[in-house]
């Protein structure tokens, strides 16, 4: 399939998404005060908070229709419907790399950052993200990504269900330490798997060093340099605070 047809096929799907967004906007805008009074003020249509959203939605509807018509005219719609249920392209190397990148970034932000100690979360994220691509072996990419997602998905779900321990409690610290142990274990397994590959091992050593150094450097510069509290502060950040207080006392 040539690039232009692939683009028109994507246009077909995106036009449907834009229809959905426009319809959602119109539906929500119709619930906003149009002529009714709001907060004790009698409204007029031209000061209504729905005015701009309705204009945007109308514009989006027109342009989505144009996009859809063009996709139908150029064969994009037919190609889109014909490809329903087929995931042939998903097996392509570039697509896998793209999906792995998105999954790791999303896992870090949605799963780790709000819950796990910043230093541990960041070191684990960097180890997984760099090793998956830099070591240059597909089985390492699979191992790192799968382990990472298996770790972050339950954390995310537990928080969603409201059963994840609150910040500053002993169970939360324990979970932070468990994540640290898993990161360590994942590192060891990867190191063993790379035994026959000296270049891979050297690259993994660089990965681990960079992960730890960057996690520590960013946490120190934001927490103690810019005085910005970190998203989640667990045992490692607390240990750093203790060291900082001790250093300040020594200096005084």
């Amino acid at each position, binding site marked *: 399939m040539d690039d232009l047809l692939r683009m028109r096929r994507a246009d077909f799907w995106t036009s449907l998404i834009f229809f959905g967004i426009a319809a959602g906007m119109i539906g929500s805008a119709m619930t906003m005060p149009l002529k009714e009074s*709001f907060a004790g003020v009698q409204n007029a249509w031209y000061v209504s908070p729905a005015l701009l959203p309705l204009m945007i939605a109308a514009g*989006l509807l027109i342009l989505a229709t144009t996009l859809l018509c063009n996709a139908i005219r150029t064969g994009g719609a037919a190609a889109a419907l014909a490809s329903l249920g087929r995931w042939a392209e998903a097996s392509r190397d570039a697509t896998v790399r793209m999906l792995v990148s998105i999954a790791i970034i999303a896992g870090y932000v949605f799963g780790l950052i709000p819950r796990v100690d910043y230093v541990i979360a960041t070191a684990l994220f960097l180890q997984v993200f760099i090793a998956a691509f830099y070591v240059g072996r597909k089985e390492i990419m699979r191992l790192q990504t799968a382990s990472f997602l298996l770790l972050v998905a339950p954390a995310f779900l537990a928080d969603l269900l409201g059963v994840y321990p609150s910040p500053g409690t002993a169970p939360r610290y324990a979970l932070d330490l468990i994540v640290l142990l898993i990161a360590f274990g994942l590192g060891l397994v990867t190191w063993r798997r790379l035994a026959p590959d000296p270049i891979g091992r050297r690259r993994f050593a660089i990965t681990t060093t960079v992960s730890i150094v960057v996690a520590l450097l960013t946490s120190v510069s934001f927490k103690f340099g810019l*005085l910005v509290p970190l998203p989640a502060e667990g045992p490692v950040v607390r240990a750093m605070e203790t060291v900082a207080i001790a250093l300040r006392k020594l200096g005084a």
Partner: protein
Amino acid sequence: MDLVGQFSIFFGTIVALLSNPYNWVLLVVSMVLGIVFGALPGLTATLGVALLTTLTYGLPLNSAMISLLAMYVGAVYGGSYSSILINIPGTAAAAATALDGYPMALKGEGGRALGLTTTASFIGTILGTLALAATAPLIAQLALQFTSYEFFLLAFFGIVISGSLTANDLFYKSWIAGLLGLTLACVGRDNLQSYPRFTMGFSALEGGIEVVPVLIGAFGIPQIIKTMRDPLRVDKPQEVRKILPDWGTIARQFKNVVRSALIGIGIGAVPGVGEDVAAWVSYGTAKNTSRHPERFGTGEPAGVVACETANNACIGGALIPLLTLGIPGSPPAAMLLGALLIHGVNPGPNLPFERPGFLIEVTAIMLLCSAAMWVCGMLLCRQVIKVLRAPSEVFLPIVGVLCVIGSYAIGLNVVNLYLMVLVGVAAFFLIEMEYPIAPLVIGVILGPMADENLRRALMVSQGSFLPFFTRPVSVILLLTIVLVMLNQVPTYRQWQSGLFRRVRRRPTAA
């Protein structure tokens, strides 16, 4: 104020800035960081300014501006390093530089090419700064006549024109991107009645969408995903011997330099159109006006000089609409707008009254940045080249961490991070489908201005749209918007070129 008075304030500002040793350190460190960001393929000037925004929000305004502008100037210039030495542009702005820069390096003239780009970038930045100093007060004065009608149209104009030169596929994809940006801008309590719009019951969204995380997401995340998906295989950089400014060649290229700078300034002043377009247009013009166009692409110094003068002159041009109208001229300028808002500076026609002297301060900082760029470029070039060997698979995840912690640091709100990732992933897919991202970002930035001024204007006219068609500036803006939109429609362009052909043929037939 007379010219002498303004010059004395200008030089007084430079002396005041330089009297603080901390500013010297910031200037040099940010400049070197900027050059490294520009030189490394996969990192961009916009991303550099974005990440530095989060690190400088605790600094005083003038120190933060030194840091951010040094990063901007350095990154636009630094892109030429990898273009010349490894034939991979460090930034899109330096893509045209590779056409003649790399052949020069292959001929053993890498040092000369780098010297030329450093000097041309220096001159380009200075000329862009002069244009900023000369035109910004006039535009700000003119913009004072604007009322809600004009401000609404101005916001609309910014969104429409930012996509006019950046859409590669269907012309209306840039309009869709602009509308999506406006949609995001509508989220949260509206400014006039404080009614919660599209918050879906989440209290975190009631304050509206934070601009900086959206910008970091839109510019940073797609860059990371794209580079990890298609990793860059960097060859060993070409050898560089002596790096000299080569003033002789620059002097012989005087016309080319001035023309390229004017192109850069003009394109920079067009909202949302960045340094890359300036470099390509100026390269094409230099080739078309050269006596030896056949030499272009084979290591012609004029090609390198044209691109590098234009892309750095574009910086000054991009700051003109940013500071006078509050509309960013380029993607890094959009990021700079976010940084200014964080520091409590509201760019626009009221800026000279709210912060008198700020424009002169920015001009002085730009001058310092161009000088620092030239010195760092000449002295640290060899050290920066070593950075080109860093693998993108290692530094892009680090950029990911900086995007995350930077977005969090702005409002200490995890929701900003969720927003950053969602916007980033959506922006990645939109870019893949050839939707330009500049109109989306400008839509997010200008959305509140459009919303507030449209309703205020209609309130004044009691719901009548007539003043939009009777006020002179409104009519000019409306006509410009219509012309820009029509100019993007292929049918109109065909009709227009057919009309021109007929007009040209008529005198010959007579």
